[in-house]
């Protein structure tokens, strides 16, 4: 029977601690819920290390552990905490190999979610890592993708920022690109928006449009197949990058890249440029299927004029 993303992560962590003798660091790991059920019930003697609530220092302690070739996994329960957790990861761990030829690989699990949880706990904040050299950024949403990126991390010497999302934890299915044939328009989706992008595609296809979809796992380095790029360049009206972060970061940057590679107009859509509140009227959620399809319809209508 297929396993969920949650079960996959839990299994990987257990293996990392028990077989690889690695360490997992974080705050309040051994609390109720065990980080959305993604951690096995293990403790400090097993390598599950509770950090204090000193956020910035915690990232430094993990970096020091990585210097000792321990390949630590660093759990950040809400991606917004990265504003205080990331400084030493990006300024030391990520640069150590380049500056001192001393690898310092850390597997950072940044966990996104949203809905009535405010501006810090809400949404993905992966753009925060994007400008720094030495960091690889991935956003796995399926069991197969998660296994693939863990394997890749264990065979390399880099810092991985793994942009997770609680909305994917129950997912069992692999997500497949649709890049065959000539499309009117192509959706390039990142993180949790990939699920709503699939729904938006269905809505638009019902209206008679041919919509392609490209699922992005590798954000940095940005990995997109030649076939996928060809699908965009052969499309009638270009494409759109959808993200669970503000567009002034990864989305706009990748849109620029895809634009250069395909010579097509690439639009972006992500969080609104405002802080998230707690009431639903003032929340800031990632684009849903209706919003995505409406935005694309607008683009297509304009293009036809």
């Amino acid at each position, binding site marked *: 029977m297929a396993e969920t993303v949650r079960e996959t992560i839990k299994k990987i962590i257990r293996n990392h601690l028990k077989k690889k003798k690695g360490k997992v660091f974080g705050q309040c790991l051994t609390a109720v819920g065990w980080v959305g059920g993604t951690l096995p019930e293990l403790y400090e003697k097993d390598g599950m290390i509770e950090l204090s609530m*000193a956020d*910035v220092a915690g990232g430094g*302690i993990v*970096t020091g552990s990585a*210097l000792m070739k321990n390949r630590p996994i660093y759990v950040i329960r809400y991606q917004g905490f990265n504003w205080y957790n990331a400084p*030493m990861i990006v*300024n030391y761990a990520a*640069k150590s190999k380049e*500056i001192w030829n*001393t690898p310092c690989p850390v597997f950072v699990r940044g966990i996104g979610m949203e809905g009535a949880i405010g501006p810090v706990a809400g949404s993905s904040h992966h753009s925060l890592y994007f400008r720094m050299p030495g960091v690889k950024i991935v956003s796995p949403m399926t069991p197969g993708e998660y296994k693939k990126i863990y394997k890749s991390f264990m065979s390399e010497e880099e810092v991985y920022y793994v942009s997770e999302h609680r909305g994917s934890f129950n997912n069992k299915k692999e997500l497949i690109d649709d890049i065959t044939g000539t499309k009117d328009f192509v959706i390039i989706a990142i993180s949790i928006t990939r699920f709503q992008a699939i729904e938006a595609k269905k809505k638009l296809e019902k209206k008679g449009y041919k919509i392609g979809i490209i699922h992005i796992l590798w954000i940095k380095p940005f990995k997109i197949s030649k076939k996928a790029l060809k699908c965009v360049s052969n499309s009638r009206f270009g494409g759109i990058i959808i993200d669970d972060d503000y567009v002034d970061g990864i989305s706009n940057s990748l849109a620029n890249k895809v634009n250069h590679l395909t010579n097509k107009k690439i639009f972006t859509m992500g969080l609104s440029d405002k802080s998230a509140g707690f009431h639903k009227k003032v929340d800031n959620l990632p684009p849903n299927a209706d919003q995505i399809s409406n935005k694309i319809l607008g683009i297509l209508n304009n293009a036809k004029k």
Partner: protein
Amino acid sequence: MDKKLRIKVFEKASLCRNFEINAFNYSKNRTIKIPIYLSAGQEFTPATLSTLIFNKKIKPLIFAQHRCHSTYLSFGGKIENLIVELLGNYRLSNTRGMGGSASIYSKEIKMYGHDGHMGTQVPIGIGACFTSRKPTIVFMGDASAEEDYVLGALGWASVKKLPILFIVEDNNLSILTEKKVRRNWHMHEVARSFKMRGYDLNDNPKEIYKYQKYFFKEPMLLNINTNRLFWHAGAGKDSDEIFDRYLNEKKYLGSIGERIDKKIKQKVDEIWRKQLEKL
């Protein structure tokens, strides 16, 4: 502390002092073009610590930040490599020109590089010590010690009872802002409040010697009051009134001190000269 040991410490301090005088001069005449952070005046802290620690047959992990030339030299770093680093030679430098004065790195002496953010070596050193369980020494300045993440990390090191020694090289200055302007508390008291040993002392080797029995048994912090002879960065002097431990020790050792200083000065000048020729 017997005289033999004190002479040993002085020899190391002399190496550091004569190195720094050369660095000062070559910076002043622009042979060294990058910013440098001279440790002249503060040599006796690393010189004494390394002598005592090596006597115990311990080779600790070392974490430091800027103003660490004397740390590197005292713990056995190659003088030739440090010269190359300061001269920014891409081909010969340990870090291919990436390190500079503020980020000395040496695999041979287990000294880890620094990222440029003051005090980050404290949590990073603690993480390395926690995972490896190896004796670890972390140097910081009195200004770095004020970083919030330093304080949070010290608390965690205390909880985990790590074999770690924190050294605050307290020259009373953050660039030129005195400690009393910045805070009304003391690092050795902070350490004690975190339930670790914390002591306030000066950089007289005899003083530092008193605490060696506690090294690496559990976390301990020594706030060592010292003096920076030169500017925060670069080749300049803030005042001629600054107490100089090196001259004090040389005077105490009398003709032996004079002889050591002369001999080591010749040796260090010669190494600088040869390295400059090579480059």
